[in-house]
């Protein structure tokens, strides 16, 4: 009996810990959200306009800082819209840890739920895995960070949309900035063996080669952690970073890894300018002075625009501000507006009518934090949006570089 009780206690603790660990503590599970959305009604806007949207992101694991930023901005977008428009939209959370296998499981549970649309997932490799599933279910999903160009051109993800420019914009912009402003003889490029990273590298290398810059392309396993990751980083700094390579491109998804790389460079007494892409854009994690970080969204923390101010102060209720989450606010806003429009037309929000409404999106620059018109091309890409670039100054402050 005693043994059984002990085993029972261990099993119960396991269930509680596993369940709680899979999402943030303020999550609304699918079961509760499904119940909330079961009574969807289409009689105009207001409290009767009920629906559920889901968000997929890495809320735990090595890149949790990215996912949590996205989650917090999505929570704020939903809360703001519900409050301002009297809608009753619930946000269900699905932690994917940036892994395609987990994203697939979570997508299947979203499909089985009453969610009418989804925000995310964060990573391009996840979109590759879940795009066909969402497509078959007719669910629109809008990512605020998946930038691999093929996602909107290979035809596998018919219901995928994104509010960020793809790597064909970010990668060349970054490479051109390096060539024109930093003038290296050689660059070290390290990809993290993921679709996101390799996609960016593919767009950068031809630009460097065309400019006569020697390219040393290496790969690191982005899923390694702790001592194993450190061993790989230490070895790369030891063996690959030569005095010629005055710039090191880090198109990585984990800002903490870029920080680790920078610290190791300093420790081994070497010199190089680090250049991270959007995945490393995290002022709380990557703060090597003199480094550059690009992003697909603006930093609105210093903006005087009333909407931006409201968002920056509002997100503090959920977690620390970070510019990585700004596009996800826009993604959630697009879905909220679509649901509201469906309700106003007298229909009950469904996957098909919300998807159709999302495709008609046209939000003016002054009404969204991206500061550009949000509208979608037929393939799901956003219509024209620039990339952004920051330099890390003393104190780890991200200073925007205009018109780069």
């Amino acid at each position, binding site marked *: 009996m005693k043994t059984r009780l002990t085993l029972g206690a261990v099993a119960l603790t396991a269930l509680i810990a596993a369940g709680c660990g899979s999402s943030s503590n303020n999550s609304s599970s699918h079961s509760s959200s499904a119940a909330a959305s079961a009574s969807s009604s289409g009689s105009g806007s207001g409290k009767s306009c009920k629906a559920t949207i889901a968000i997929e992101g890495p809320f735990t694991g090595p890149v949790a800082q990215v996912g949590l930023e996205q989650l917090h901005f999505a929570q704020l977008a939903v809360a703001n819209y519900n409050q301002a428009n009297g809608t009753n939209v619930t946000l269900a959370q699905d932690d994917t840890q940036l892994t395609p296998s987990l994203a697939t499981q979570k997508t299947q549970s979203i499909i089985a739920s009453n969610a009418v649309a989804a925000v995310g997932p964060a990573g391009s490799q996840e979109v590759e895995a879940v795009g066909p599933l969402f497509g078959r279910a007719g669910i629109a999903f809008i990512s605020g960070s998946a930038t691999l160009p093929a996602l909107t051109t290979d035809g596998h993800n018919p219901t995928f949309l994104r509010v960020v420019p793809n790597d064909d914009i970010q990668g060349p912009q970054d490479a051109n900035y390096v060539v024109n402003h930093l003038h290296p003889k050689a660059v070290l490029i390290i990809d993290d063996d993921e679709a996101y990273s390799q996609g960016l590298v593919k767009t950068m290398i031809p630009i460097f080669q065309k400019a006569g810059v020697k390219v040393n392309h290496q790969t690191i396993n982005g899923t390694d952690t702790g001592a194993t990751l450190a061993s790989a980083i230490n070895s790369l700094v030891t063996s690959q970073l030569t005095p010629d390579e005055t710039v090191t491109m880090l198109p990585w998804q984990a800002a903490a890894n870029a920080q680790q790389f920078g610290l190791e460079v300093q*420790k081994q007494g070497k010199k190089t300018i680090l250049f991270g892409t959007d995945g490393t854009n995290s002022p709380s994690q990557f703060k090597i002075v003199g480094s550059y970080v690009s992003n697909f969204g603006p930093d609105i923390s210093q903006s005087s625009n009333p909407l931006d101010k409201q968002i920056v102060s509002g997100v503090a209720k959920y977690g620390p501000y970070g510019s990585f989450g700004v596009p996800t606010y826009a993604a959630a806003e697009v879905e909220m507006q679509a649901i509201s429009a469906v309700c106003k037309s007298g229909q009950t929000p469904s996957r098909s009518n919300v998807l159709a409404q999302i495709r008609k999106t046209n939000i003016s620059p002054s009404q969204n934090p991206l500061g550009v018109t949000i509208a979608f091309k037929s393939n799901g890409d956003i219509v024209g949006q620039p990339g952004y670039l920051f330099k890390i100054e003393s104190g780890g402050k991200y200073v925007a570089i205009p018109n780069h």
Partner: protein
Amino acid sequence: MHEFIQTIINGLETGFLYALIALGYSMVYGVLKLLNFAHGDVYMVGAYIGYYVLQAFGGPTALSIPVPLLVFLMFVAAALGCGLLGVGIERFAYRPLRDAPRIAPLITALGVSFILENSVLLLFGGFTKSYSTNSFINVDTGGINIGSINIDPVQITIFVGSILMMYGLMQIVDRTTLGKSMRAVASDREAAEMLGINVDRIISYTFFIGSAMAGVAGVMSGLAFNQISATVGFLAGLKAFTAAVVGGIGSIPGAMIGGLFIGLCEAFAATYVSTKFSDLIVFGILIVVMLARPTGLFAQPALQKV
């Protein structure tokens, strides 16, 4: 030459950490014949304990006590915390299954690993936490300089601390009553019990010591590599387990040599072949060693009861 020496230093840094974790695997296997897959997560918990001790004394940029005292307290707190955690895991998860088929405690160990990882996520969140060691220890120019190569104070602490702990453990096992009891339990648990040895207590001590060493390794890892997260234990545990098997699981010198061997192989593979293939090479070596010496490099020949 510079690259070669730097690679050795890199390899020793991770190798000593693998060795400290591998010791716990080896000790527990020696006494219980149990593969304690939760051990890597105990190491992760140690890293978190060290982090919160650091925060309790003002954080990396505003320390309220001298650095040597802080580091000592981090080690002591992690050793005690992880030691007690190890004892608790043994008492509540493994002891009830001691006479169950082998597969039961093995699966339980995996379950405990997930419980620890998810509990840490739940309690401390998913954000990677940083020790920011360079804010309170001069890792760039402090320590020992050999030509252009710098062995920083954290690396020195890892090298010296690990050697001292391993030496201390060997003294305990070889020269104390506790060590003799451990060896007796490892050799034949029932016979040891009949001779008046409190087997439960000896097993608890074994878990305490092994887990305490993993806790210290966790703090060393945080100091050396800065970032910690709830997921750092799994891979480190897997590598340490490989080290223990290569060295000869159950053998203390084997775990030490195995850890250093794996650390150096990983570093040399990453430096001279590719970081992409370092795991392939490390686990390839494991297979080759197993094929050549199925009991590992330093395992004692098993006595055959007749």
